[in-house]
């Protein structure tokens, strides 16, 4: 600490050195300025020393922050109007990374003849560790503690200082296919995931795998932001891709265009393509094609009170299997409106073939109401109707309580 102070003092002295002050008043002001400069230097040094990285850490998106991370290469975006759990980090973080825990409790009422959910469950508790590694990279690790065990939900390094504005990631990641696949459960605007996730994109948790990703943004015409991403993975993701031999890697490409229509309204469109080998062996491919579109509205002067987000994702799956190749299609379309600072309502329509039996189509719809008692807790109710291909219906009521402690959050965008 003494060393720090000395350094700060020396730095302050070399930095200041103004011409001699003529009056006593000026001299006092001069002295005041020096003390303030010194205090500032000490603050900066303390930050560097205690966090191993200077400046504010991307810990928590402040409350009410649009989760919708418009800024994403991996848009961990949740509805623009959905509450982002998490808050300010404490100063006591010392040399540790920012740590946060997000608990998720779900209660289900009603009957589902096809996919029976437990009446009460803690589907996952997410523990995250985030830190800037050095001026060139940052690390984000998310562990998911289920009732049965621990899983590495994501864990990767982001290289932030590559030449030519490239951004690269290595590690385990949610694959950049569409929007919802990149989002963690607790940032979704619903309790569950849409039917396309279950039927076409890898099952319950979606597509995630170990691999690397490289991405770059471009300035398009009229201020449009364009972004291209290429990813390569081991080739094990949900029930979509699996690796029978080392060469069975999967590849993914994503293109994105984003434009501000007005300062409050913007449109975000993405195209995704994924290709890998399926569980029948190295000679059997599954290819995925996706289109996603998001329209957001958030008036800047009242950003914390009102917002609207409409989103659709369309997915085509082409799976080689016996006896015949299966070409399946599915989509969802949803809208969410923020009524007031603490209240959101939304709905979703689902329609999806099944990847392994494209002739079977499931349909459904949901209505969601979300309340946010504080920045660190969220209560959500969802009514869900599903019409399964087998001809059976399910009417369910899902209740969710989410809470966050620690310096959570921000999912890397």
């Amino acid at each position, binding site marked *: 600490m003494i060393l720090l102070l000395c350094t700060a003092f020396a730095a302050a002295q070399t*930095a200041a050195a103004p011409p001699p002050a003529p009056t006593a008043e000026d001299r006092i002001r001069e002295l005041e*300025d020096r003390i*303030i400069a010194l205090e*500032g*230097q000490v*603050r*900066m040094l303390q930050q560097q020393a205690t966090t191993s990285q*200077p400046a*504010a*850490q991307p810990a*928590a*998106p*402040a*409350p009410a*922050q*649009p989760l919708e991370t*418009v*800024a*994403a290469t991996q848009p961990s975006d949740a509805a623009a109007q959905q509450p982002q759990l998490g808050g*300010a*980090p*404490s*100063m*006591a973080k010392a040399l540790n990374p920012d740590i946060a825990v997000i608990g998720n409790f779900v209660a289900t009422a009603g009957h589902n003849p096809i996919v029976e959910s437990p009446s009460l469950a803690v589907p996952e508790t997410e523990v995250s560790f985030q830190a*800037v590694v*050095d*001026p*060139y990279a940052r690390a984000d690790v998310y562990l998911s503690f289920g009732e049965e065990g621990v899983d590495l939900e994501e864990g990767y390094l*982001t290289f*932030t*200082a590559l030449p030519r*504005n490239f*951004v690269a990631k290595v590690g385990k990641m949610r694959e950049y296919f569409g929007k919802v696949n990149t989002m963690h459960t607790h940032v979704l605007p619903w309790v569950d995931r849409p039917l396309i996730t279950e039927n076409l994109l890898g099952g319950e948790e979606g597509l995630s795998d170990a691999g690397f990703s*490289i*991405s770059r*943004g471009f300035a398009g015409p009229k*201020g449009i*932001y364009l*972004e*291209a991403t290429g990813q*390569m993975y081991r080739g094990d993701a949900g029930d979509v891709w699996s690796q029978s031999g080392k*060469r069975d890697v999967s590849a993914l*490409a994503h293109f994105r265009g*984003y434009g*501000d229509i007005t*300062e409050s309204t*913007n449109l*975000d469109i993405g195209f995704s393509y994924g*290709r890998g080998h399926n569980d029948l062996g190295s000679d059997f491919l599954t290819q995925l094609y996706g289109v996603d579109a998001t329209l957001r509205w*958030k008036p*800047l002067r*009242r*950003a*914390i009170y009102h917002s609207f987000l409409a989103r659709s994702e369309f997915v085509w799956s082409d799976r080689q299997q016996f006896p015949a190749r299966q070409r399946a299609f599915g989509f969802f379309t949803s809208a969410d409106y923020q009524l007031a*600072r*603490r209240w959101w309502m939304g709905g979703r329509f689902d329609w999806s073939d099944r990847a392994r039996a494209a002739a079977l189509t499931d349909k459904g719809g949901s209505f969601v109401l979300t309340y946010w008692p*504080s*920045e660190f807790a969220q209560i959500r109710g969802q009514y869900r109707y599903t019409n399964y291909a087998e001809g059976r219906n399910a009417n369910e009521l899902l209740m969710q309580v989410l809470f966050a402690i620690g310096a959570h959050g*921000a999912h890397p*965008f």
Partner: protein
Amino acid sequence: MKSYRTYAIIAALMGAMLFAGPAEAKQLNVVTSTTDMAALAQEVGGDKIKVEAIARGYQDPHFVEAKPSFLLKLRNADLLIAVGLDLELGWLPALVTQCGNGKIQPAASGYLDASQFAEILEKPTGPVSRAQGDVHPLGNPHYWLDPDNGRRIAKGIAAKLAQMDPENAAYFQQRAADFEQRLAQAEKRWQQQMAPYRGRKVVSYHKSWPNFARHFGLDVVGYVEPRPGIPPSPQHTMELIGQMKRDNVKIILVEPYFDLKTPNSIASKTGGKVVVLLPSVGGEQQASDYFKLFDYDIQLLTSAFQQVK
């Protein structure tokens, strides 16, 4: 069939991306998180820099949407000036991580945290917890609303610009000195206007004004928010009304991005007046630079004080 063709396509795309680099600009490209930092940078940078702010002056600086269009601004920045003290925690780090510009990463030389130059009030003394509110954990980040801090920040920015562009060092120092002089002039005028109202008690919506209040001798005795970042609750509002009646407080300062419902109802119950004061340059068209921001606010305040006697 093997997947080589796909990989060849991806490799070709990557190659194409490599050659699509931007051209270098001659002026220093400065991006700031808020309009106030942009205004101060412009004062000292003159025509040797190009400066652009991310947030608008009428946006709540705590809650800005991290739009991808901002990535394009950040990508070509030589210098990023942030307010710091976690003001931009919810949006700026995400953008910086994503922009692919190594120069402005935290710890890199093109990242300037302006809070190091300013006098910071309301620094937490004990352990920090959520019980104290959510958005000011490191001290009050609305520090630019004291002209003395404006002067110090401008000086700090000038020193940084001089270091990044040594050829124009004298130019930046000259402009900083000129700014200081003009600020001292304006200060006399502002102090004169505010002199009759020194010591007046006011309440504000958010804790945006401690530096302003101290500089101009106002006494902020309460807040519409129970704690920074927490929306008003009925119980807190009742207490505030009681306090305002007891202390005869008539002025409620509200930032332009807050809903006026609660402030208006407080005003009607206390015979007070709601004043939508601007915390940032560009909050209204007239408040187009650092001087005009204070001109605007002081004009509004003094006329409000006159109206409530």
